[in-house]
């Protein structure tokens, strides 16, 4: 893989990842395209610009860690891992099929380059905090990143972990909330409202950065600010659009957990050409 800090190049990679998400979930006839599309810029900026990692040495001890706590957005992670060279691109369309390494939710048994199996919501923040503690014990420069769903942070464990992270001054941990405002049953504001979200994290002792989660330059600046913030962990509240990049999927709760059909795949790929 060729790492890059150039926002235009990163945007090009994002388009490619979005095409993977559409074809993958389309081939699987199930999966979660909406919340995968909303997190594309976040993951691409991390993997191509921010994370210290090496696909040739997936277990390099001092690598940065990434955990996709909202495991149902597996298609975006699979697209990214494949384009980085960790896993094959050509079998992405076996997503969710028996025997595929591209399981419905990320599974370390099938992809050893994953840091953690996820899928049960609310757990990933604790996991990266554990990784952060380990890095501090080892005096390792490793930083640990986790992407949380907005609906996911309705889980109580997230707030146990938030309290723990600030108390233990986990400044080598960065959480990103993919705030696309939609969960399975509808809009978060109608299911169980998260607001005031920034104030919640602030009151838990986190350094909070609010930004447009599709603005690559803003993401780059925020990750740099997070790395420079000492004595407390950072959370990026990334305002995103569910289904981003595909007009008929954008902001449409239907595509939280429904894959595009053949006609929709064609339309979507045309928009993402």
């Amino acid at each position, binding site marked *: 893989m060729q790492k890059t800090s150039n926002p235009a190049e990163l945007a090009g990679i994002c388009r490619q990842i979005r095409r993977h998400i559409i074809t993958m979930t389309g081939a699987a006839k199930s999966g979660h395209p909406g919340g995968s599309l909303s997190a594309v810029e976040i993951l691409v900026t991390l993997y191509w610009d921010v994370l210290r990692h090496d696909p040739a040495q997936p277990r390099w001890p001092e690598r940065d*860690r990434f955990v996709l706590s909202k495991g149902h957005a597996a298609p975006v992670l699979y697209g990214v891992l494949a384009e980085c060279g960790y896993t094959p691109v050509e079998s992405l369309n076996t997503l969710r099929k028996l025997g595929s390494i591209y399981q419905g939710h990320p599974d370390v048994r099938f992809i050893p380059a994953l840091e953690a*199996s996820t899928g049960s919501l609310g*757990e990933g923040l*604790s996991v990266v905090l*554990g*990784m952060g503690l380990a890095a501090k*014990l080892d005096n390792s420069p490793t930083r640990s990143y986790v992407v949380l769903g907005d609906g996911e942070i309705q889980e109580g464990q997230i707030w146990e972990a938030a309290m723990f992270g600030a*108390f233990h001054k986990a400044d080598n941990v960065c959480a990103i909330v993919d705030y696309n405002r939609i969960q399975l049953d509808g809009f978060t504001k109608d299911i169980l409202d998260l607001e005031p979200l920034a104030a919640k994290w602030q009151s838990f002792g986190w350094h909070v950065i609010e930004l447009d989660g599709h603005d690559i330059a803003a993401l780059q600046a925020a990750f740099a600010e997070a790395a420079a913030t000492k004595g407390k962990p950072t959370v990026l509240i990334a305002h995103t659009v569910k289904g981003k990049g595909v007009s008929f999927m954008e902001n449409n709760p239907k595509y939280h957990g429904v894959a595009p059909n053949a006609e929709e795949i064609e339309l979507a790929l045309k928009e993402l050409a």
Partner: protein
Amino acid sequence: MPANTKFELKLGAPTREAFGRTLAELGKENPNIVVGDADLTKSTMTTYFAKAFPERLFECGIAEANMVAIGAGLAMSGKIPFVSSFSAFIMTKGFEQMRCLVAYPNVNLKVVGTHSGISIGEDGPSQMSMEDLALACALPNFTVLSPADEVATKWAVRWAANHVGPVFIRCGRVKAPVIYDADATFEIGKGVELLGGTDVTLVATGLLTAECIKASDILAGEGISARVIDIHTIKPLDEELLAKAARETGALVVAEEHLVDSGLGARVAQALARHAPAPVEFVGLTRYAESGSPDELLDHYGMRAPEVAAAARKVLARKK
């Protein structure tokens, strides 16, 4: 004390105390050992480790689910974490985290539940763990240990630290009668035949092991020869030893400080149904208990040698 056995059954340290002492020893030997506790270090006895290695003790506060997941993250980064709380809390509040982050991806986390059973005493049913073995055994990849005394506990904790994979260790609050010599050796997944016998086999774990030894004495007075087996490894279960006992004695009693429907007894019955069907009677808990002193509760809820002996007579009557 039992006249016809070699066991004095003097009260030793609580198994939680043996856990805490051993953990502190291990901390000295291996810098990768780290510990999480949920505001109970003085009860779980991780306090010894905390005093010796404060930088490796992570106080998680009263948040067991987070603690288990933090432990999983530490293990994923190459540490050997022990997380501990009352068994009643860690196995229930941390269960889902154990299922998804530890059991299924086979992560190297050690879970130690203390104050198990009803012998926690006065605190009552909210703090009593009667379901922990069932929960731990329900998780594939977990090894489940239930040591009977301080010697077996020391071995169990050391074994867990050296084993790569998830482990649950069940410890108790009260002083436990010493069964093993200090230099006794154990093997994972292998029960220990403490006493030979030909008429019936008494299978036990934890505090009930000593009661079964006492029960064998009662039975000996009636001319009944009882074999006594201590099962320190609940999973994987020593099916071979149990099947041999079933074939040679033809009847068994299983005794445990746990719900009878879902603990060691259920696992023994399953093993025997597979390999050597034989009548079995069960001594254990069938309902939630109440406050009282540990000794009163063990008496009141039938966790003693006379109940084991009665179960033996009952199963002998069923034996063809």
